[in-house]
């Protein structure tokens, strides 16, 4: 099966999951209207932030820069990789790609500083009572780089391309999006097959959120990646793969800043992939590039050292929900027994692992899907998550090892075998070494370390149809994001195989991307209920329930929350504190993804 075919199969299967999930119940009738109003409330009063945060934790505050804006200049940005492509419907768009793509394309919605979707190319939105119909009104007077005007029909014409796209097809199905119609010159109606109160979060993502010119895309789908046409602040000038991509100012850009100044401020912006972390930082220090991104704690540590040593750079650090750790394949013995999973997590010396990862003083220890800064974070879940306790871990594992009915078929007293696998990254390898040493020190575990490239690593966890069990055991992984929890959690909680779905009485509900193969009816029911309401308190309680179930069943373990950084020369302003068209503060730079329309260079 080709990679594209696999993606489509996954998308199809997952769509069944969500369709069936949505049929599961729920009768909320809350309506929502976005705009300057938000549909999310603050965290309940009984949630207290943790008091054991890292002393030097990432804490760049998102704020608008008060300095006077200046037109002109060029900024060269060092990225950790080349963008695989610039077709929102077809190409995977990770952090480096997002930096590039956001200069060419605008999204229908963007996140605000509270990570709530707010209109961007959209002007307003209304949603019906059962969250199955979203009517979006577009801004007027917006034109694409090729002069074509943005209308509702543009969005409708994008839909067939999105349905067929390798990347967007999955988003179409997992969001329950069934149809997109132009119901006015600037009015678009999104019809969902099943309720989804978090649908707008999909319109802040690359797959469904980026607005591209469908005529240009249809005329030359392959060439579009070199000549993308959007409504964004910059127009692509040249694209030399693995070397440099240059964008120049879009003089017809539709946005102005709060003072009415036409955006963008820069004449041009260039992106250079520099995969090696040290080289990228050196490039910033030497002026070869003027800005850089990093998703590595060790690089943040080194950049801090350079800044503190006098380098004239500004570091914009961010630590969100994204959290590192790993998962157990609960479909395979001995990980099908919660005693093994719990015991191994209790033997995970989290503090030392974070030290090995280079995250001491940078990363917050993870206990759940959300970071302590998130409104979704729960003290109850943090308390319930198994902490490092060597004696308790040994006792828990001993119970399994001494059980004559132990699931791995080994004799009583024999240690369990664990294959711990991570991609071959130096940081992860260091973390693996720590985990292995502590696990093996228990005398109850024989740990084998394996490394496979990223693609193989994912394929090992995905497995093959029809059961998608995978061949992984203890598997390094990243979890969560700063978008709506449903985007990541719901697929991770649905039945992983037809057999499990059948046994659970929900045949056809399958999510192959439930990589840990952990299916818990209580958690899944809560996940389904959480996309049938937009009431924060209700949703918070449901996600807390899920967190407690995960802490109890421990299908996954956590190391630390991922810190990211954008480093810029000190005369580059505006990366922090960009604003939405409504004037509200935007979402900053999560995942080292900058918004470059409002960046300017102060002349030396």
């Amino acid at each position: 099966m080709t990679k594209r075919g696999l993606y489509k199969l996954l998308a199809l299967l997952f769509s069944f999951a969500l369709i069936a999930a949505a049929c599961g119940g729920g009768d909320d009738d809350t309506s929502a209207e976005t705009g300057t109003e938000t549909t999310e409330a603050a965290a309940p009063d009984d949630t207290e932030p943790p008091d054991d945060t890292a002393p030097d934790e990432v804490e760049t505050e998102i704020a608008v820069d008060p300095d006077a804006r200046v037109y002109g200049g060029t900024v060269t940005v060092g990225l950790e990789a080349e963008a695989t492509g610039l077709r929102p419907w077809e190409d995977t768009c990770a952090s480096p790609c997002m930096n590039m793509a956001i200069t060419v394309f605008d999204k229908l919605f963007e996140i605000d500083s509270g990570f709530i979707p707010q209109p961007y190319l959209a002007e307003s939105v209304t949603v019906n009572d059962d969250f199955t119909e979203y009517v979006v009104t577009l801004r007027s007077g917006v034109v694409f780089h090729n002069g074509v005007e943005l209308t509702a029909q543009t969005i409708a014409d994008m839909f067939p391309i999105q349905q067929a796209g390798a990347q967007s097809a999955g988003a179409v199905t997992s969001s329950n999006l069934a149809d997109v119609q132009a119901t006015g010159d600037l009015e678009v109606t999104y019809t969902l097959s099943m309720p989804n109160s978090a649908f707008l979060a999909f319109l802040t993502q690359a797959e469904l959120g980026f607005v591209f010119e469908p005529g240009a895309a249809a005329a030359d789908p392959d060439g579009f990646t070199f000549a993308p046409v959007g409504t964004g602040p910059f127009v692509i000038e040249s694209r030399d793969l693995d070397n440099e991509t240059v964008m120049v100012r879009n003089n017809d850009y539709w946005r102005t800043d709060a003072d009415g100044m036409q955006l963008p401020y820069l004449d041009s912006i260039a992106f250079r992939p520099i995969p090696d972390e040290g080289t990228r930082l050196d490039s910033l220090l030497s002026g070869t590039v003027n800005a850089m991104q990093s998703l590595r704690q060790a690089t943040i540590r080194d950049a801090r050292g350079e800044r503190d040593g006098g380098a004239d750079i500004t570091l914009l650090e961010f630590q969100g929900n994204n959290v590192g750790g790993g998962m157990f394949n609960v479909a395979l013995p001995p990980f099908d027994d919660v005693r093994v999973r719990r015991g191994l997590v209790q033997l995970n010396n989290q503090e030392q692992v974070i030290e090995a990862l280079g995250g001491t003083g940078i990363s917050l220890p993870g206990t759940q899907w959300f970071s302590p800064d998130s409104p979704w974070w729960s003290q109850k879940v943090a308390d319930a998550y198994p902490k490092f306790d060597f004696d308790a871990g040994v006792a828990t594992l001993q119970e399994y090892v001494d059980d004559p009915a132990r699931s791995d078929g080994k004799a009583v007293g024999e240690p369990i075998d664990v294959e711990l696998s991570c991609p071959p990254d130096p940081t992860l390898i260091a973390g693996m070494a720590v985990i292995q040493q502590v696990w093996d020190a228990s005398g109850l575990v024989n740990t084998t370390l394996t490394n496979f490239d990223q693609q193989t690593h994912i394929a090992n966890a995905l497995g093959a149809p029809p059961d998608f069990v995978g061949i992984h055991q203890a598997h390094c992984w990243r979890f969560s994001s700063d978008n709506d929890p449903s985007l990541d959690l719901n697929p991770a909680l649905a039945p992983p195989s037809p057999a499990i779905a059948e046994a659970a009485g929900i045949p056809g509900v399958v999510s192959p991307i439930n990589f840990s193969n952990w299916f818990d009816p209580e958690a899944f029911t809560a996940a389904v209920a959480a996309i049938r309401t937009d009431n924060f308190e209700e949703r918070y309680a449901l996600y807390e329930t899920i967190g407690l179930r995960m802490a109890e069943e421990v299908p996954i373990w956590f190391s630390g929350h991922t810190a990211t950084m954008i480093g810029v020369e000190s005369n580059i302003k505006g990366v922090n504190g960009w604003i939405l068209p409504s004037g509200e503060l935007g979402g900053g730079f999560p995942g080292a993804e900058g918004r470059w329309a409002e960046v300017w260079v102060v002349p030396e």
Partner: protein
Amino acid sequence: MTATESPDASTNYPSDSLTRVSTAEPPRGGGPPKRSSVFEVFKEMPLLVKFAAIWLVLVFFGAIYAKLDTVVFGGALPLQDPNLQTNNFNAATGTFGDGAPSEGPSLAHWLGTDAVARDTFARVVHGAWVSLIIAAVAAVFGVVVGGLIGTFVGYVRGVADSIIMSIIDVILAFPALILLLAMVSILRVRSLLVISLVIGFLSIPAYTRVARANSLSISNREFVTAARAIGTKDRTILFREVVPNVLPTLMAFALVSAAFVIVVEGSLSFLGLSVQLPTATWGNMINQARRDLRQDIWQVIWPSLALTFTVLSLNQVGDFLVKRSSVRASSL
């Protein structure tokens, strides 16, 4: 007729005597040919090559020592466990001591410790074993398989030569590292044996070409012509006349090739695709230490030096032996 062509070669002597002439030291001053001892060869070496040879001996015995320590003596010999994180790890509580894991050189850790407090000297010594085995297996594969194929097609030529060399050229044309990455990924098992065999397989084409070139040359020599003229079977000529004369060149080439193989393994390790962790190799040590280059550059330098010195030494000694065997060959 060249200066070293002996009148004996054009006479119809039995092939046995021709073989002796062809593999022996060229007659100097009319004295009988004799083999040089290792010590005599060492004495012939220039000073730099002598140092290189000594380094290789150290690496060889260091690797053997490390392996004996692990396999035979269970870690009882005075060399630290290369995989033990030493920062006051308490196995009874699963806890580590305070302070940074990475330490500078000390009496306890001659080359310091890496990012997770493993003894760097022990890891460098153990890393030599991986390089040694991979180089040895690649050389054996190359000499035996590549050497025999090359010698055979160089001798018989014709269609067999065209077909086999076309295949060899295709393998040679494919980027070795890419092919290696693909094979390692497909095989999935990352034991030292598997990695060695894969690299050994990829060494075959180079040896084949070297062996064929030498075989072509030797097949035209008078003593081979003479052997054919007296009706000696091709198989006998091949194994008694040609192979023994190709072998010294292949052995010398094996040293030079070993340097290349060690670098290839290092590249594979650097990409995290060589032998299974936590086995120490020089390549994976460099890979793992590069993250902390700004914190402790020495953890990259030590394995890099070991790799550099070893590759340089293999090249020096290999070049010396190639030249030496060329002199011998030209005197045939």
